[in-house]
């Protein structure tokens, strides 16, 4: 019966390196066969790997070895020359001393690599689909603005944050005047175009961190932050005059605005207040804005 077995026959690459210099002090024949390289008098561990793997070695593996003395199951790629790349799995352990030594076990992992690739592809595909769905579920199809659901979600979150930070915020409800007549007179396709143009005017006259949404048929909502009362008034007038100034689809269109400003009131309250102000603006003859400061107490 055979009693002397050679460690060299194990199907795993064994490498011993100096921790700080990364010089290869010893390596098993299997490792050289795997990497298709000849033993050299001096070589650094990095020489056996692709540039991408060198980055992982330097920015993950080395800090981990210095920090915790071991590094488990890292997927790397050996550069076996003439564009042959061999995926490998590496485990490493530091044995302290003068100098500190690292013991590496490096085994081929072609099948594991293929499996990972399939998982990565699957995940990427899922991620793209989920993001598309996410965008679709938040968007008003006609105007490209946020829809009612996304508006409520975003506005609630940001208003809570503004409350904590003591930032004032303003809630605008905007309704196109006599929209039903526009639809009846010119048809629904025309009405849709008016809605699209209105969305464009609103986005062009607001800032990138304001929230603009279409929340109903001809009803739009805006939330802006850091609005002193006068600047909310200013924005409301600016929107109205922008709407008045440019004929939409060749006809004159006007709108009414209700605007509630606060620094404490919750979202639901502001929604109601802005809606009530909008109703008043309609009653006072339309084509106007009514703004009011609510202190929330």
């Amino acid at each position, binding site marked *: 019966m055979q009693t002397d077995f050679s460690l060299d026959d194990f199907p795993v690459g064994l490498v011993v390196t100096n921790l*700080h*210099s*990364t010089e290869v002090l010893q390596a098993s024949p299997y490792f050289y066969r795997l990497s298709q390289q000849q033993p050299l008098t001096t070589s650094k561990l990095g020489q056996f790997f*692709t*540039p*991408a*793997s*060198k*980055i*992982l*070695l*330097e*920015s*993950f593996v*080395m*800090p*981990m070895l*210095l*920090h*915790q003395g071991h590094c488990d199951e*890292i*997927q*790397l*790629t050996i550069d076996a020359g003439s564009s042959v790349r061999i995926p490998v799995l590496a485990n490493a352990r530091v044995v302290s001393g003068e100098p500190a030594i690292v013991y590496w076990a490096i085994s081929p992992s072609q099948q594991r*690599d293929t499996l*990972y*690739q399939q998982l*990565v592809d699957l*995940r*990427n595909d*899922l*991620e*793209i689909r*989920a*993001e*598309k769905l*996410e*965008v679709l579920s*938040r*968007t008003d199809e006609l105007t*490209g*603005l*946020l829809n009612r659901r996304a508006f409520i979600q*975003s506005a609630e*979150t*940001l208003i809570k*944050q*503004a409350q*904590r*930070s003591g*930032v004032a915020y303003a809630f605008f409800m905007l309704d196109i005047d006599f929209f039903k007549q526009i639809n009846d007179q010119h048809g629904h396709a025309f009405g849709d175009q008016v809605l699209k143009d209105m969305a464009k005017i609103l*986005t062009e006259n607001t800032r*990138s*961190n*304001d*929230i*603009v*949404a279409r929340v109903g048929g001809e009803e739009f909502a805006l939330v802006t*932050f*850091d609005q002193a009362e006068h600047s909310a008034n200013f924005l409301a007038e600016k929107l109205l005059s922008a709407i008045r100034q440019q004929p939409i689809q060749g006809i004159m269109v006007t709108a009414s605005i209700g605007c509630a400003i606060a620094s404490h009131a919750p979202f639901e309250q502001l929604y109601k207040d802005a809606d009530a102000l909008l109703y008043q603006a309609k009653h006072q003859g339309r084509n106007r804005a009514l703004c009011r400061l609510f202190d929330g107490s």
Partner: protein
Amino acid sequence: MFQFSLIVGALKHPVPNIGAFMFVQEDIITRNNVNVLGRGEQVLLMAHGFGCNQQMWRFLVPYLEGNFKIVLFDYVGSGSSDLGAYSKQKYADLAGYSQDIVDICQALDLNNVVLVGHSVSSIIGLLAAQKIPERIHSQVMVCPSPCFLNFPPEYMGGFNREDLVELIDLMDKNYIGWANYLAPLVTGELEGKVFATELTTSFCTTNPITAKNFAKATFFSDYRHLLPLNQHPVLLLQSEVDALASLFVGNYMLEHTPQSRLEVVSARGHCLHMSHPEQISLIIKDFLRIPVEAGSPDAD
């Protein structure tokens, strides 16, 4: 990967910008897992590099905490930061990370700050110093590089684009937050929860989203144009042999950064502050004109 931004490009207000507000101090301390230690008038704000967290400073800190007030933190998305505060858009760019430094300096009202940054954090520090120059005293850059890409013949950052694409691929295969990450994707709960459910305790980031986003921001960026705009004294610390930042890169930094001084340490590797902490601490003290006493580290 990040086609989200392309899809929503048509929307004016895809994701409202929460970062528009000033944060209160407690928020920032929790968000960035800020830790303050040491004693001294001069503040050292230490910014970890790509991949790891503030624990990478633990070898260097004992040599400096007797002379300085030391502020450590984790970038949002790394270490024990608040992953709920993570935004893919914000942290797709080094400017997003530099805002973390600005927020910390403002929240703690830090002045006379020496920004100590490892690797990519040197450039992040440079971006932060431009936003709040009055709070910054100087910068210490450990193994910095303004650009990892090669632009032959005038600039050799060390890597070709294919290498870096392969790096992203390798990272994908190494960061196996699959279970945590896939489930919300399948159930469609993409917002917030993906990040919030996972708390990273390991030394190196294995969060598949944040780590890869950081890698992309780090390795595909080119901030060479930023160097001449520097307004503070800069200490450049460089390894003799460093696969990520070659001597060429070190000399490039020196040549293009006003008020800079280069110290080449006869060592190998990209983590000088971990492998040669004492030597690094002496150079930093010399740079900041702190007299060096016999016997160290200070904690002994």
